Structure formats: C-alpha cells, structure tokens
C-alpha cells in the first residue's frame, strides 16, 4: 500500500515552476502548472541524473538544466534528444494547502 507523503505547502511553488523534494533517500520534482495544477515526477533527469528542479518549466514541459532535455512533466514522456527514457510520475493531491504525493 502506497502512502501519501506531504511534500510542501502549495504556495511554496510559484506558478509554472518546479521544486525539489527529497524523501526516504529518493529525490522528486514537484511541479505547479500555469493552470495551477500540481504534478510530481522523479527528481533526476533520465539522461544524466541531473536535478530537474534546477530546470525550466514551460507550459507542460520541464527542461533539464544540463543538456536541455525535455519531458512532459504531466505524463513523464521524453520529448526528444538527449532524453530517450520517460520520467516516472506520481499521483499528487492538494489537501488543506499542502501538496501530497503518493510514493509507490
């Protein structure tokens, strides 16, 4: 059974931005879309293990800060070179102003 884990306060993340969240020896990236929705993925780029939270969010895309590899952070889909492997995504909900992610 997967648990919901509190990652941060909803207001901690600006719109169209991303934040790093470390938990249980793992690292995640929490996103707030331009439509004020929240999403979560693994925190490291599947290309060379760089923290995506240092990257740029544009619409539904997160761009890795090292090689500009792009993912759709809503689906985890890799969107072209140099990233070829999709990102793992996690369910997210906002409850009482807190962002929670379900870590499997």
């Amino acid at each position: 059974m997967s648990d919901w884990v509190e990652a941060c306060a909803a207001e901690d993340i600006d719109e169209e931005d991303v934040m790093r969240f470390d938990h249980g020896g793992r690292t995640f990236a929490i996103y707030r879309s331009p439509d004020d929705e929240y999403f979560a993925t693994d925190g490291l780029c599947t290309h060379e293990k760089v923290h995506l939270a240092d990257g740029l969010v544009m619409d539904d895309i997160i761009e890795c800060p090292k090689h500009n590899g792009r993912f759709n952070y809503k689906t985890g889909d890799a969107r072209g070179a140099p990233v070829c492997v999709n990102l793992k995504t996690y369910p997210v909900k906002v409850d009482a102003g807190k962002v929670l992610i379900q870590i499997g």
Partner: protein
Amino acid sequence: MTAITSSAASPRDYSLTGRDARLAVENGLAAAEWYHTEIPRKQMKELMQRSDQPAIRDTIIWLGAFVVSAAGGIWFWGSWWCVPFFFVYGTLYGSSTDSRWHECGHGTAFRTQWMNDAVYQLACFMIMRNPVTWRWSHTRHHTDTIIVGRDPEIAVMRPPDLLRVILNFFGILDAWHAMTDMVRNAAGVISAAEKTFIPEQEQPKAIRVARIWLAIYLVTIALALYLHSWLPLMLVGLPRLYGAWHHVMTGLLQHGGLAENVIDHRLNSRTVYMNPISRFIYWNMNYHVEHHMFPMVPYHALPKLHEMIRHDLPAPTPSILAGYREMIPAFLRQLRNEDYFLKRALPPTAKPYREELHNDNPVAAAAE
C-alpha cells in the same frame, strides 16, 4: 592569468575509446559535478525565460542577408564585384551557421520548438554537421568539457596540430572529414567513436540525414556540370570553405590553450569581448564561460548573466586580438611541452571550488 607546466609525463590519448577515456571514468572526471556560481532561483528563472522575438528578429536579418548577398553574387558573377557579396554570403554560410546550429541545438534560441528545429536543420546542413551526430557529440561536450578521451569537440589537441588549425580557417580538413563522414553514414556505417555517444535508436536518423544531404550535393554537382559553371557550388557547399574563417577564429577562443581535465568551466573556457558584428555572427557565444556554466540561458540573455556573475569569473579577455595574443604563444609552447597551459586566475571575490583543481597538475589533482 598565469602559465603552468604540468608534470604529467605520458602523452594524451584523445580517442573516445582509448586509454584516457577509461582513465577519465576511473578518475571521476566523466559526468562529474561541475562548479557553477550560485544564482537565486528567481533570477535564474528570469534569465532562462525563452522568447521567440529576439531570434525571429535576428533570423529575419540573417536570412535577408543571405538573400541579398546571394543575389548580388549571382548578379555580378563573372566580375570582381561578386567578391564582396560572396564574402558576406560565405561568412553567413560557413560561420554564422556554427552559432545557429549550436544555439538551436540547445533549444534556447526560440521559445517555439519547431523554429529551433527548422533553423537547426538548415544550419547543420550548411556547417556540414550531421544534426543527429552533432547533437549527441555536443551533449557529451557539455557533460565532459575538455576532458581528454571524453570530449569529442576538443578543437586543438596537444601538442597542437597548427597546420590543421590553419587549414581549417579555410574549412579544408573539416569539410573533408564532414564529406567522408557523410558518405560513410550514407552507406549505413556508424563509427566506433560515434557509437560511444549516439544512442542506438538514434543512429538510423544519422544515416537518413546523410543520405538526404548526399543527394543534395550530387544534384548541386550535376547542376554545376550541366551549366558548366562553378556558381551552384559557390552557393551550396563551397561557402563552407571560403566562409569558415570567422567561426574558426571565434571557436578557437572558446577553450584554446586553457586547462584540460578540470571540472570548473572558469578554468577551461574563455569569455571574450567582441565587436557587435562578430557577436551577431556568433550569437553571443563569446560569453563562453557563462554559456557552459548555464546552458539553459538563451544567447540574448548572456550579457545580463555575464554582468550578474562576473565577480566569480576570471577577467574576460578584452578582445579577439588579445585572445590570440595569449593563445598563439601557448600553442607554440605546447609544441615543445604539451603539458603547458594557461592557468586562469580567479578574482579575490570568487568562490573557490575543488582547490586541488587550481594546483599545477590538474590531471593528478582531479584523480584524487
């Protein structure tokens, strides 16, 4: 800046499959964590913001200059008046495409991705760089900048092959290698070195592009033969030779004569102040330390980034001429002693990083 002679004894092996490639992995130099100046997230986000407007403006000017210079060259073909037009056309074709390929390959020039892709493909064709192969080689260049045995884009290896450097001001060796690589790829062959940085699923794309390009060159040659004129080749292909001078002139300055096997771009890259025309041709890649440290920042925001972090960087080289005044003697010195390099002095306000990297023997230091 001071000059350093390292005590490392053995010659370098720049092959991507050789001894130094293996040593770089063993010594932790491959895919290492590199230094970057701290910038608050809010400011970094502002710097990284994408915009179509600057690149659309620049691309309209760029394509317009292509059309005008090509039209003038064709109109005056057969007289000396065509020379200045082909000088401009060649410089655009054989040099400005270097920076367009580069910036659009990073995906930072335009906000709209198809615009990046379109200019990338066009520029790759003109600069004769397979868009698949070079996307991946440049990815490696950013991961392992000037790491011997890892970086496939080290322009001047030690000891410097100065004849090769001089010939490349006229694109001679680069174009020859590009052509032989294109024919090899078109025949369906990916080299062992290419296989080290191009993922298997991407390799068929490199082959497909090579076949399309080969067809374009064959059509151009056929047209030249049919017309009994060099003119088609003056417009397609040859400008990569007679117009290469500017991109080689600026490209050598990026890392020439500086340290190898360090994981701090302040020590192996050079920021050079340049005139506005060169900056247009080069799309601000003269801010090269800044670009390597923060490749997410678009070309048009690099001057602002430079002002923001210059306190943490070595003093910029004040001109192209000044760059060559320090680089050429270093190349000549490296002919006698390939361990010699230009050591960058960081300003007193700079944040140190891996102090051992600033010692006299970077190879040994990085290996610790």
